[in-house]
Protein backbone atom coordinates (compact mmCIF):
# COMPACT_ATOMS: atom_id res chain seq x y z
CA UNK A 1 0.00 0.00 0.00
CA UNK A 2 2.81 2.43 0.86
CA UNK A 3 5.64 0.92 -1.18
CA UNK A 4 7.28 4.25 -1.95
CA UNK A 5 7.48 5.42 1.63
CA UNK A 6 10.93 5.44 3.13
CA UNK A 7 11.33 4.33 6.72
CA UNK A 8 13.30 7.09 8.46
CA UNK A 9 16.27 6.18 10.64
CA UNK A 10 15.45 6.74 14.30
CA UNK A 11 18.23 7.68 16.71
CA UNK A 12 17.52 7.04 20.36
CA UNK A 13 20.27 8.76 22.37
CA UNK A 14 20.31 8.04 26.09
CA UNK A 15 22.77 10.68 27.29
CA UNK A 16 23.53 14.28 26.38
CA UNK A 17 26.86 13.13 24.93
CA UNK A 18 25.05 10.73 22.58
CA UNK A 19 22.58 13.44 21.63
CA UNK A 20 25.32 15.90 20.71
CA UNK A 21 27.22 13.31 18.72
CA UNK A 22 24.06 12.21 16.84
CA UNK A 23 23.01 15.83 16.20
CA UNK A 24 26.47 16.58 14.77
CA UNK A 25 26.51 13.50 12.53
CA UNK A 26 22.95 13.98 11.26
CA UNK A 27 22.40 17.71 10.91
CA UNK A 28 19.22 17.28 8.86
CA UNK A 29 17.45 15.00 11.34
CA UNK A 30 14.45 16.39 13.21
CA UNK A 31 14.27 16.48 16.99
CA UNK A 32 11.26 14.51 18.20
CA UNK A 33 9.82 15.47 21.58
CA UNK A 34 6.26 14.17 22.01
CA UNK A 35 5.46 14.17 18.29
CA UNK A 36 1.88 15.37 18.86
CA UNK A 37 2.15 18.27 16.38
CA UNK A 38 4.18 16.41 13.75
CA UNK A 39 1.82 13.45 13.75
CA UNK A 40 -1.34 15.54 13.66
CA UNK A 41 -0.37 17.18 10.36
CA UNK A 42 -2.56 16.13 7.42
CA UNK A 43 -0.78 13.46 5.40
CA UNK A 44 1.99 13.07 7.99
CA UNK A 45 2.67 9.45 7.13
CA UNK A 46 1.81 9.27 3.47
CA UNK A 47 3.53 12.39 2.17
CA UNK A 48 6.80 10.46 1.83
CA UNK A 49 9.05 13.26 3.14
CA UNK A 50 10.33 11.20 6.04
CA UNK A 51 13.34 12.86 7.66
CA UNK A 52 15.61 11.06 10.09
CA UNK A 53 14.45 11.35 13.69
CA UNK A 54 16.32 12.07 16.91
CA UNK A 55 14.03 11.06 19.75
CA UNK A 56 14.86 12.98 22.94
CA UNK A 57 12.42 11.19 25.25
CA UNK A 58 14.97 8.65 26.50
CA UNK A 59 17.56 11.11 27.79
CA UNK A 60 17.27 11.07 31.57
CA UNK A 61 18.86 14.52 31.89
CA UNK A 62 16.20 16.10 29.70
CA UNK A 63 13.36 14.45 31.62
CA UNK A 64 14.33 15.94 34.95
CA UNK A 65 12.64 18.73 36.89
CA UNK A 66 15.05 20.37 39.36
CA UNK A 67 14.35 22.83 42.11
CA UNK A 68 17.18 25.09 43.24
CA UNK A 69 17.05 27.97 45.73
CA UNK A 70 16.14 30.47 43.06
CA UNK A 71 14.88 28.58 40.08
CA UNK A 72 12.68 25.78 38.85
CA UNK A 73 14.55 24.02 36.05
CA UNK A 74 12.57 21.96 33.58
CA UNK A 75 14.16 19.55 31.09
CA UNK A 76 12.99 19.94 27.51
CA UNK A 77 11.71 16.35 27.26
CA UNK A 78 9.43 16.76 30.29
CA UNK A 79 5.81 16.19 29.35
CA UNK A 80 3.01 18.60 30.26
CA UNK A 81 1.49 16.05 32.65
CA UNK A 82 4.81 15.57 34.42
CA UNK A 83 5.07 19.32 34.80
CA UNK A 84 1.55 19.56 36.24
CA UNK A 85 2.45 16.89 38.76
CA UNK A 86 5.02 19.30 40.27
CA UNK A 87 2.01 20.95 41.91
CA UNK A 88 0.60 24.42 42.39
CA UNK A 89 3.14 25.31 45.07
CA UNK A 90 6.11 25.21 42.72
CA UNK A 91 4.53 26.24 39.42
CA UNK A 92 3.58 29.86 38.76
CA UNK A 93 -0.24 30.15 38.48
CA UNK A 94 0.04 31.42 34.89
CA UNK A 95 1.99 28.36 33.80
CA UNK A 96 -0.37 26.05 35.66
CA UNK A 97 -3.40 27.61 33.93
CA UNK A 98 -1.72 27.42 30.55
CA UNK A 99 -0.85 23.76 30.84
CA UNK A 100 -4.23 22.79 32.26
CA UNK A 101 -5.99 24.45 29.36
CA UNK A 102 -3.80 22.68 26.78
CA UNK A 103 -5.60 19.69 25.27
CA UNK A 104 -6.79 16.82 27.45
CA UNK A 105 -4.83 14.76 29.96
CA UNK A 106 -4.37 11.95 27.44
CA UNK A 107 -2.71 14.24 24.91
CA UNK A 108 -0.85 16.26 27.56
CA UNK A 109 0.91 13.13 28.71
CA UNK A 110 2.58 13.05 25.28
CA UNK A 111 3.25 16.75 24.66
CA UNK A 112 6.74 17.83 25.61
CA UNK A 113 7.95 21.24 26.74
CA UNK A 114 10.79 21.35 24.21
CA UNK A 115 8.56 20.27 21.35
CA UNK A 116 5.99 22.91 22.20
CA UNK A 117 8.63 25.66 22.24
CA UNK A 118 10.66 24.61 19.22
CA UNK A 119 7.99 23.67 16.67
CA UNK A 120 8.68 25.48 13.43
CA UNK A 121 6.01 27.65 11.81
CA UNK A 122 3.53 27.71 14.68
CA UNK A 123 3.53 29.12 18.20
CA UNK A 124 1.70 27.51 21.08
CA UNK A 125 0.42 28.91 24.37
CA UNK A 126 3.36 27.62 26.39
CA UNK A 127 5.77 30.02 24.68
CA UNK A 128 3.42 32.92 25.51
CA UNK A 129 3.19 31.94 29.17
CA UNK A 130 6.93 31.39 29.56
CA UNK A 131 7.67 34.65 27.80
CA UNK A 132 5.28 36.54 30.11
CA UNK A 133 7.01 34.91 33.08
CA UNK A 134 10.42 35.92 31.67
CA UNK A 135 11.64 32.33 31.68
CA UNK A 136 14.98 31.48 30.15
CA UNK A 137 15.93 28.59 27.88
CA UNK A 138 19.27 26.82 27.94
CA UNK A 139 20.42 26.59 24.34
CA UNK A 140 23.21 24.19 23.37
CA UNK A 141 25.09 24.80 20.15
CA UNK A 142 26.93 21.91 18.49
CA UNK A 143 30.07 22.94 16.65
CA UNK A 144 31.76 19.70 15.75
CA UNK A 145 33.29 18.23 18.89
CA UNK A 146 32.85 21.48 20.79
CA UNK A 147 29.52 22.55 22.30
CA UNK A 148 28.62 25.85 23.84
CA UNK A 149 25.77 26.63 26.21
CA UNK A 150 23.94 29.89 26.73
CA UNK A 151 20.78 31.07 28.44
CA UNK A 152 18.31 32.94 26.24
CA UNK A 153 15.02 34.57 27.27
CA UNK A 154 12.13 32.53 25.84
CA UNK A 155 10.77 35.66 24.17
CA UNK A 156 13.99 35.92 22.15
CA UNK A 157 13.66 32.47 20.62
CA UNK A 158 11.20 33.86 18.06
CA UNK A 159 10.93 36.77 15.71
CA UNK A 160 7.84 39.00 15.70
CA UNK A 161 6.05 36.74 13.23
CA UNK A 162 6.53 33.84 15.62
CA UNK A 163 9.21 32.05 13.59
CA UNK A 164 11.61 29.97 15.65
CA UNK A 165 14.99 31.58 15.02
CA UNK A 166 17.49 29.13 16.48
CA UNK A 167 19.79 27.47 13.94
CA UNK A 168 19.58 23.77 13.10
CA UNK A 169 22.68 23.00 15.21
CA UNK A 170 21.15 24.65 18.28
CA UNK A 171 18.64 23.00 20.58
CA UNK A 172 16.85 23.73 23.84
CA UNK A 173 17.82 21.51 26.76
CA UNK A 174 16.31 23.20 29.81
CA UNK A 175 13.93 25.96 30.86
CA UNK A 176 14.61 28.05 33.93
CA UNK A 177 11.89 29.85 35.86
CA UNK A 178 12.41 32.19 38.81
CA UNK A 179 10.40 31.40 41.94
CA UNK A 180 8.93 34.88 42.45
CA UNK A 181 5.20 34.42 41.95
CA UNK A 182 3.16 36.97 40.06
CA UNK A 183 0.46 38.85 41.99
CA UNK A 184 -1.89 38.65 39.06
CA UNK A 185 -1.95 36.39 36.04
CA UNK A 186 -4.33 36.16 33.13
CA UNK A 187 -4.37 33.54 30.43
CA UNK A 188 -6.88 33.20 27.65
CA UNK A 189 -6.87 31.31 24.40
CA UNK A 190 -9.55 31.14 21.80
CA UNK A 191 -9.84 28.75 18.88
CA UNK A 192 -7.77 25.68 18.21
CA UNK A 193 -4.19 26.59 17.29
CA UNK A 194 -3.37 23.23 15.69
CA UNK A 195 -6.59 22.67 13.74
CA UNK A 196 -7.29 26.24 12.69
CA UNK A 197 -4.49 28.68 13.51
CA UNK A 198 -6.07 31.44 11.43
CA UNK A 199 -8.65 32.46 14.04
CA UNK A 200 -6.86 31.54 17.25
CA UNK A 201 -5.51 34.14 19.68
CA UNK A 202 -3.59 33.60 22.91
CA UNK A 203 -2.90 36.19 25.58
CA UNK A 204 -0.65 35.54 28.57
CA UNK A 205 -0.24 38.32 31.09
CA UNK A 206 1.63 38.45 34.38
CA UNK A 207 1.74 41.46 36.68
CA UNK A 208 3.81 41.99 39.81
CA UNK A 209 2.84 44.81 42.13
CA UNK A 210 3.77 46.00 45.56
CA UNK A 211 1.40 48.18 47.57
CA UNK A 212 -0.60 49.13 44.46
CA UNK A 213 2.52 50.07 42.46
CA UNK A 214 3.25 47.95 39.41
CA UNK A 215 6.79 46.60 39.48
CA UNK A 216 6.62 44.26 36.47
CA UNK A 217 4.08 44.17 33.67
CA UNK A 218 4.64 41.36 31.16
CA UNK A 219 2.32 40.60 28.32
CA UNK A 220 2.60 38.26 25.34
CA UNK A 221 0.13 37.96 22.47
CA UNK A 222 0.22 35.15 19.96
CA UNK A 223 -1.53 34.52 16.66
CA UNK A 224 -0.29 30.92 16.18
CA UNK A 225 0.94 31.23 12.62
CA UNK A 226 1.60 34.95 12.24
CA UNK A 227 2.44 36.89 15.40
CA UNK A 228 4.50 36.65 18.56
CA UNK A 229 4.32 40.01 20.27
CA UNK A 230 5.90 41.05 23.56
CA UNK A 231 5.02 44.75 23.75
CA UNK A 232 8.12 45.87 25.63
CA UNK A 233 7.41 49.62 25.36
CA UNK A 234 4.08 49.08 27.10
CA UNK A 235 5.71 46.87 29.71
CA UNK A 236 8.24 49.58 30.52
CA UNK A 237 5.72 52.43 30.45
CA UNK A 238 3.45 50.63 32.94
CA UNK A 239 6.17 50.06 35.53
CA UNK A 240 5.52 52.40 38.45
CA UNK A 241 1.85 52.94 37.51
CA UNK A 242 -0.65 52.93 40.35
CA UNK A 243 -3.43 50.40 40.63
CA UNK A 244 -6.31 50.51 39.86
CA UNK A 245 -5.61 51.71 36.35
CA UNK A 246 -7.74 54.55 35.03
CA UNK A 247 -9.91 54.16 31.93
CA UNK A 248 -7.48 56.40 30.02
CA UNK A 249 -4.51 54.23 30.99
CA UNK A 250 -6.34 51.10 29.86
CA UNK A 251 -7.29 52.75 26.56
CA UNK A 252 -3.70 53.87 26.04
CA UNK A 253 -2.35 50.34 26.59
CA UNK A 254 -4.97 48.80 24.28
CA UNK A 255 -4.31 51.43 21.58
CA UNK A 256 -0.55 51.03 21.79
CA UNK A 257 -0.66 47.21 21.60
CA UNK A 258 -3.21 47.25 18.77
CA UNK A 259 -0.97 49.63 16.78
CA UNK A 260 1.97 47.29 17.29
CA UNK A 261 -0.12 44.30 16.20
CA UNK A 262 -1.28 46.14 13.07
CA UNK A 263 2.27 47.10 12.17
CA UNK A 264 3.55 43.53 12.54
CA UNK A 265 0.88 41.38 10.94
CA UNK A 266 0.61 40.47 7.29
CA UNK A 267 -2.47 41.09 5.12
CA UNK A 268 -3.81 37.55 5.42
CA UNK A 269 -4.52 37.89 9.15
CA UNK A 270 -8.26 37.92 9.87
CA UNK A 271 -9.61 41.15 11.46
CA UNK A 272 -11.35 38.96 14.05
CA UNK A 273 -7.95 38.02 15.48
CA UNK A 274 -6.98 41.66 16.00
CA UNK A 275 -10.37 42.44 17.52
CA UNK A 276 -10.12 39.45 19.86
CA UNK A 277 -6.62 40.46 20.97
CA UNK A 278 -7.90 43.96 21.73
CA UNK A 279 -10.82 42.70 23.81
CA UNK A 280 -8.63 40.22 25.67
CA UNK A 281 -6.22 42.96 26.71
CA UNK A 282 -9.10 45.16 27.89
CA UNK A 283 -10.60 42.35 29.88
CA UNK A 284 -7.21 41.40 31.39
CA UNK A 285 -6.62 44.97 32.57
CA UNK A 286 -10.13 45.30 34.03
CA UNK A 287 -9.60 42.05 35.89
CA UNK A 288 -6.24 43.31 37.15
CA UNK A 289 -8.08 46.34 38.53
CA UNK A 290 -10.70 44.27 40.28
CA UNK A 291 -8.07 41.90 41.73
CA UNK A 292 -5.95 44.77 42.99
CA UNK A 293 -8.97 46.22 44.85
CA UNK A 294 -9.82 43.03 46.71
Amino acid at each position, binding site marked *: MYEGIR*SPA*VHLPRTMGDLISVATRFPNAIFWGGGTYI*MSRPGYYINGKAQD*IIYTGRIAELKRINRTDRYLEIGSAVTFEQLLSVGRQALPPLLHKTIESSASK*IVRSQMSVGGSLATKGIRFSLSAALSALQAEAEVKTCMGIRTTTRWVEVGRLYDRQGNYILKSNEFITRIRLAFDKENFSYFIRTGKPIIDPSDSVTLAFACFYNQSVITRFNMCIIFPSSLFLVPQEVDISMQGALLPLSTQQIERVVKSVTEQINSEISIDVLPIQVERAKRFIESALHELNSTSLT
Partner: protein
Amino acid sequence: MKVECTIDGKQHILNVNSNKPLNRILFEDIEPALMIDNCGEGNCGNCVVLLNDQAALACLIPAFKLRGAKVMTFRGYQKSRFWHDIERAYEDTGSNPCPYCYASKSLIFESLLQTVAQPGQSESEVEQLSEQTIINEISLNRCPCLNHDEIIEIFNQGAMYRRRRRVRRY
Protein backbone atom coordinates in the same frame (compact mmCIF):
# COMPACT_ATOMS: atom_id res chain seq x y z
CA MET B 1 12.20 -1.48 11.34
CA LYS B 2 11.48 -4.52 13.50
CA VAL B 3 9.34 -3.80 16.51
CA GLU B 4 8.57 -6.30 19.22
CA CYS B 5 5.50 -5.50 21.27
CA THR B 6 2.49 -7.04 22.95
CA ILE B 7 -0.92 -6.29 21.51
CA ASP B 8 -3.95 -7.52 23.48
CA GLY B 9 -1.76 -9.99 25.32
CA LYS B 10 -0.22 -11.49 22.18
CA GLN B 11 3.45 -11.06 21.36
CA HIS B 12 4.01 -9.55 17.90
CA ILE B 13 7.14 -8.88 15.87
CA LEU B 14 6.21 -6.22 13.35
CA ASN B 15 8.19 -5.17 10.34
CA VAL B 16 6.94 -1.64 9.75
CA ASN B 17 8.20 1.84 8.92
CA SER B 18 9.64 3.48 12.00
CA ASN B 19 7.27 6.46 11.82
CA LYS B 20 4.09 4.55 11.03
CA PRO B 21 1.29 5.52 13.44
CA LEU B 22 -0.11 2.85 15.72
CA ASN B 23 -3.67 3.23 14.39
CA ARG B 24 -2.43 2.31 10.90
CA ILE B 25 -0.39 -0.59 12.30
CA LEU B 26 -3.45 -1.98 14.08
CA PHE B 27 -5.65 -1.49 11.05
CA GLU B 28 -3.28 -2.67 8.33
CA ASP B 29 -0.78 -5.00 9.98
CA ILE B 30 -2.73 -6.66 12.78
CA GLU B 31 -6.49 -6.78 12.19
CA PRO B 32 -8.79 -4.14 10.67
CA ALA B 33 -11.49 -4.80 13.27
CA LEU B 34 -9.20 -3.59 16.08
CA MET B 35 -9.42 0.02 15.01
CA ILE B 36 -12.32 2.09 13.72
CA ASP B 37 -10.28 4.28 11.42
CA ASN B 38 -10.95 7.93 11.42
CA CYS B 39 -9.26 11.26 10.84
CA GLY B 40 -5.72 9.99 11.48
CA GLU B 41 -4.66 13.40 12.77
CA GLY B 42 -5.51 13.40 16.46
CA ASN B 43 -8.72 15.36 15.87
CA CYS B 44 -11.57 12.88 16.28
CA GLY B 45 -10.38 11.03 19.39
CA ASN B 46 -11.72 7.75 18.07
CA CYS B 47 -8.50 5.74 18.20
CA VAL B 48 -7.89 5.57 21.95
CA VAL B 49 -5.87 2.56 23.13
CA LEU B 50 -4.16 1.70 26.39
CA LEU B 51 -0.40 1.96 25.95
CA ASN B 52 1.37 0.47 28.97
CA ASP B 53 -1.97 0.85 30.83
CA GLN B 54 -2.22 4.58 30.06
CA ALA B 55 -4.81 5.85 27.59
CA ALA B 56 -3.25 7.34 24.44
CA LEU B 57 -4.34 8.31 20.95
CA ALA B 58 -3.06 5.61 18.59
CA CYS B 59 -2.68 8.10 15.72
CA LEU B 60 -0.09 10.04 17.77
CA ILE B 61 2.13 7.05 18.60
CA PRO B 62 4.84 6.20 16.07
CA ALA B 63 6.11 2.65 15.64
CA PHE B 64 9.52 3.38 17.18
CA LYS B 65 7.85 4.12 20.53
CA LEU B 66 6.31 0.65 20.57
CA ARG B 67 9.48 -1.31 21.31
CA GLY B 68 8.67 -3.50 24.28
CA ALA B 69 5.36 -1.73 24.81
CA LYS B 70 2.10 -3.30 25.92
CA VAL B 71 -0.82 -2.16 23.77
CA MET B 72 -4.38 -2.94 24.67
CA THR B 73 -7.22 -2.20 22.27
CA PHE B 74 -10.86 -2.19 23.24
CA ARG B 75 -11.16 -5.83 22.23
CA GLY B 76 -8.43 -6.85 24.66
CA TYR B 77 -9.81 -4.55 27.34
CA GLN B 78 -13.22 -6.22 27.10
CA LYS B 79 -11.59 -9.41 28.36
CA SER B 80 -10.29 -7.73 31.51
CA ARG B 81 -12.29 -7.65 34.74
CA PHE B 82 -12.19 -3.83 34.84
CA TRP B 83 -14.43 -3.62 31.79
CA HIS B 84 -17.37 -4.88 33.82
CA ASP B 85 -17.37 -1.73 35.97
CA ILE B 86 -17.98 0.42 32.93
CA GLU B 87 -20.37 -2.03 31.32
CA ARG B 88 -22.48 -2.11 34.48
CA ALA B 89 -22.36 1.68 34.71
CA TYR B 90 -23.79 1.87 31.18
CA GLU B 91 -26.52 -0.58 32.11
CA ASP B 92 -27.41 1.16 35.37
CA THR B 93 -27.64 4.62 33.89
CA GLY B 94 -29.30 3.49 30.67
CA SER B 95 -26.91 5.68 28.68
CA ASN B 96 -24.59 4.16 26.13
CA PRO B 97 -22.15 5.79 23.76
CA CYS B 98 -23.07 5.23 20.10
CA PRO B 99 -21.46 2.26 18.32
CA TYR B 100 -19.06 4.60 16.49
CA CYS B 101 -17.36 5.94 19.64
CA TYR B 102 -18.23 3.14 22.09
CA ALA B 103 -14.70 1.71 22.20
CA SER B 104 -12.83 4.94 22.58
CA LYS B 105 -15.18 6.52 25.15
CA SER B 106 -15.06 3.35 27.23
CA LEU B 107 -11.25 3.45 27.26
CA ILE B 108 -11.29 7.13 28.25
CA PHE B 109 -13.67 6.26 31.10
CA GLU B 110 -11.21 3.54 32.11
CA SER B 111 -8.31 6.02 32.17
CA LEU B 112 -10.38 8.31 34.41
CA LEU B 113 -11.37 5.46 36.72
CA GLN B 114 -7.70 4.53 37.09
CA THR B 115 -7.02 7.93 38.65
CA VAL B 116 -9.88 7.75 41.17
CA ALA B 117 -9.21 4.26 42.39
CA GLN B 118 -5.69 3.00 42.08
CA PRO B 119 -4.73 -0.18 43.89
CA GLY B 120 -3.03 0.49 47.21
CA GLN B 121 -4.42 4.04 47.62
CA SER B 122 -6.07 4.93 50.90
CA GLU B 123 -9.43 6.80 50.93
CA SER B 124 -7.68 10.12 51.64
CA GLU B 125 -5.25 9.67 48.76
CA VAL B 126 -7.97 9.11 46.19
CA GLU B 127 -7.92 11.91 43.68
CA GLN B 128 -11.19 13.77 43.26
CA LEU B 129 -11.82 14.71 39.66
CA SER B 130 -13.89 17.78 38.99
CA GLU B 131 -16.88 17.51 36.67
CA GLN B 132 -15.13 19.88 34.28
CA THR B 133 -12.08 17.59 34.09
CA ILE B 134 -14.28 14.57 33.35
CA ILE B 135 -16.16 16.43 30.61
CA ASN B 136 -12.88 17.72 29.12
CA GLU B 137 -11.38 14.26 29.01
CA ILE B 138 -14.42 12.64 27.42
CA SER B 139 -14.61 15.53 24.95
CA LEU B 140 -11.34 14.29 23.48
CA ASN B 141 -13.71 12.14 21.47
CA ARG B 142 -15.71 14.61 19.42
CA CYS B 143 -18.80 12.41 18.99
CA PRO B 144 -21.74 14.24 20.67
CA CYS B 145 -23.78 11.13 21.50
CA LEU B 146 -23.62 11.60 25.30
CA ASN B 147 -24.61 14.80 27.07
CA HIS B 148 -22.74 16.18 30.08
CA ASP B 149 -25.14 14.81 32.69
CA GLU B 150 -24.97 11.33 31.19
CA ILE B 151 -21.15 11.42 31.18
CA ILE B 152 -21.01 12.42 34.85
CA GLU B 153 -23.62 9.82 35.78
CA ILE B 154 -21.73 7.02 33.99
CA PHE B 155 -18.45 8.09 35.56
CA ASN B 156 -19.87 8.25 39.09
CA GLN B 157 -21.51 4.86 38.73
CA GLY B 158 -18.32 3.33 37.30
CA ALA B 159 -16.25 4.90 40.10
CA MET B 160 -18.58 3.37 42.67
CA TYR B 161 -18.10 -0.13 41.22
CA ARG B 162 -14.35 0.42 40.92
CA ARG B 163 -14.06 1.51 44.57
CA ARG B 164 -16.07 -1.51 45.69
CA ARG B 165 -13.71 -3.73 43.72
CA ARG B 166 -10.75 -2.04 45.43
CA VAL B 167 -12.27 -2.51 48.89
CA ARG B 168 -12.89 -6.20 48.19
CA ARG B 169 -9.29 -6.74 47.02
CA TYR B 170 -7.41 -4.87 49.74
